[in-house]
């Protein structure tokens, strides 16, 4: 592999990593702050991608989709949380997995019923449909924009969690919900807001990824798989972990697709196994 190609694959890997960060940050946020295992995360991503498809079809504007996708998915998540999930917070993780898995299946089947099982295209917005030249290589402007959005999300989330009162409440709630409740804070509402935020982030990822990969009803499984790999590698429940894990997995995938193409996907899981062996709590996880 030439140095130029290696450099490009590193840049490309960082780009893929930022997309993976977007995919997983909602999942890690929900687990970190609520200790809740959300197997419906991929389904929220899927639902938002289809909302993006429908909105673009009706309005011709991707920017409306960027607004409606995360918002509508957050509302859907709120409804699901109120009706179903809040009853499982005190139950073991197995119950949470089962119920969120069921939610994921219902969302997927509903999408098949509404949109058919075949895939659809979501065009890249015309303002971002060009490419940037990096020597002999080109990089899609849209991917660069997605990286920018992901970086912005990382910064905003970090400020919100580490530097605001709401963030302090969330962090305190994750340590001891009972104590926070005794201080007069409605923990139920905090958890509800956290869940909606996590789902909205999955929704944002779904909308942003739709022009890259199109939409099809089974896209949630891959997204959920990648999201779990990223949070395990980075450390369950940590924002920085999702970022570091995402970039590491993106780099491994991109570089290995030149060095050992047939094993690129395998190496993602090999990297995860290695991290678990060396640091069972993940790269940025608390020991």
């Amino acid at each position, binding site marked *: 592999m030439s140095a130029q190609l290696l450099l490009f694959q590193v840049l490309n890997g960082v780009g893929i990593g930022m997309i993976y960060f977007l995919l997983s940050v909602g999942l890690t946020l929900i687990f970190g702050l609520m200790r809740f295992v959300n197997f419906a995360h991929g389904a929220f991503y899927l639902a938002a991608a289809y909302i993006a498809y429908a909105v673009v079809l009706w309005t011709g504007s991707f920017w409306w989709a960027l607004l409606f996708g995360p918002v509508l998915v957050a509302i859907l998540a709120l409804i699901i949380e109120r009706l179903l999930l809040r009853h499982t917070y005190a139950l073991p993780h197995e119950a949470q997995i089962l119920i969120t898995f069921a939610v994921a299946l219902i969302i997927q089947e509903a999408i098949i019923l509404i949109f058919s099982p075949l895939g659809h295209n979501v065009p890249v917005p015309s303002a971002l449909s060009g490419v940037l030249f990096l020597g002999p290589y080109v990089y899609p402007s849209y991917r660069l924009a997605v990286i920018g959005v992901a970086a912005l999300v990382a910064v905003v989330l970090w400020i919100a969690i580490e530097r605001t009162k709401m963030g302090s409440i969330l962090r305190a709630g994750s340590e001891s919900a009972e104590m926070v409740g005794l201080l007069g804070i409605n923990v139920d509402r905090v958890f509800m807001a956290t869940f909606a935020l996590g789902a909205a982030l999955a929704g944002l990822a779904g909308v942003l990824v739709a022009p890259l990969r199109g939409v099809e009803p089974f896209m949630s499984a891959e997204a959920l798989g990648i999201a779990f790999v990223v949070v395990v590698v980075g450390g369950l429940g940590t924002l920085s972990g999702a970022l570091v894990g995402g970039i590491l997995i993106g780099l491994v995938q991109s570089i290995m697709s*030149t060095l050992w193409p047939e094993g*690129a996907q395998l190496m993602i899981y090999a990297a995860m196994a290695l991290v678990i062996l060396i640091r069972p709590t993940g790269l940025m996880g608390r020991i």
Partner: protein
Amino acid sequence: MIDRRRVLTGVAAAPLVLAAPAFIRRANAQSVVDVAGVYSMSGTFANVGSGLNDGSKWAIEQYGSAAGNKLNYVLLDDRGDAGEAVRKVQEAMTQRGIKHVIGCTNSAIALAVQKEVYARKGIYINEAGADEITGKDCNKSSFRWPVACYSAVNATVRPLIEKLPKAKRWYTITGQYVFGDSLLSNCKDVFKEKGIEHVGNSYHSLSDREYSGYIATAMAQSPDVLAICNFGNQTVDVVRQAISYGMKRNTKILAVWSTGLDQFQALGPENCEDIYFGANFWHGVDTPGSRRVAEIVKQKTGDVPNYLQACGYAVSQILIEGINKANSTEVPAIIKALEGLSYEGPTGTETIRPEDHQVVKDYYLMLGKAKSKMKDKNDLCDVVAATKAFLPPEKTGCQMAASL
């Protein structure tokens, strides 16, 4: 007034009257032929399985009966797993006595199922693409409607080489599974014969969705043509991502095997333009057989048929044509009737080769057209070439037993 004799006659006749529905049911049951369709309704290729299943089911519904027997469609969902497919087929054949099996969602499943059906002396009509199906793994029970990988490559790569004489450097991106490998090895043979430089290949796995790394590797080789040797959503994803990385600017892109209209729609006209695709079926080719498919699909969906529906339809049709010609539902009689049969299929007059049970039909090389040139929403591509490119039977490696 009711006399004693009439009461006794009535009592005597009562059991017969009561039993009549059972007799009627049994008489009906004897004339029903269960046809099992093996499709993946979940998993990576579920979108493919679902379309194929629709086509098969609708054909059964449209024909209704064959040789005086009512047809009943039984779906076996293999969930994208060859092992599951074999288990479901075993169960259907042993417990339900089903002998007529159709369908598959990928070649690995078809290879497993065709061995199983043959071992249990059934008949199996499938839509797999791997050469082995009618090659070294052929058997007396199995028939295949789509072309083999050899034909797909020779009906696309070869005409494209002739169309683009200056395009000497080809790169391939290949799905690492039976079907992808089969396409790749046939591509290599054509490259060698035509003096094409194969500048590299990137394998990807069945679960890949991110191809930018492979595309960057391909771009580093500056190929004239990128040939994509995979299947299903993966084809669409590679094409879409290759375009987004600007490959269309100085590289021609060929998806050797596409599922036609549904994939063109999934890509959208802006991505389809100037991309070459191989396809087994195109709704724009007007034939008596394609009109029959169009009729039922229009009735069900209000739209034109896509490849998946046509392909699913075709495997049902072959079985029904065989039963009708044999005037029997007995497997050996159907096999005999099908060998050498010509019929009006979805692509025109199609013929089943007796030597390897391959349906001889056209395979299309298509070129995506500009949005401004589209006559309607489905007019996404033009047929550039229609070719019947088949290995001579003696070279397929198929050694078929004379009987079941």
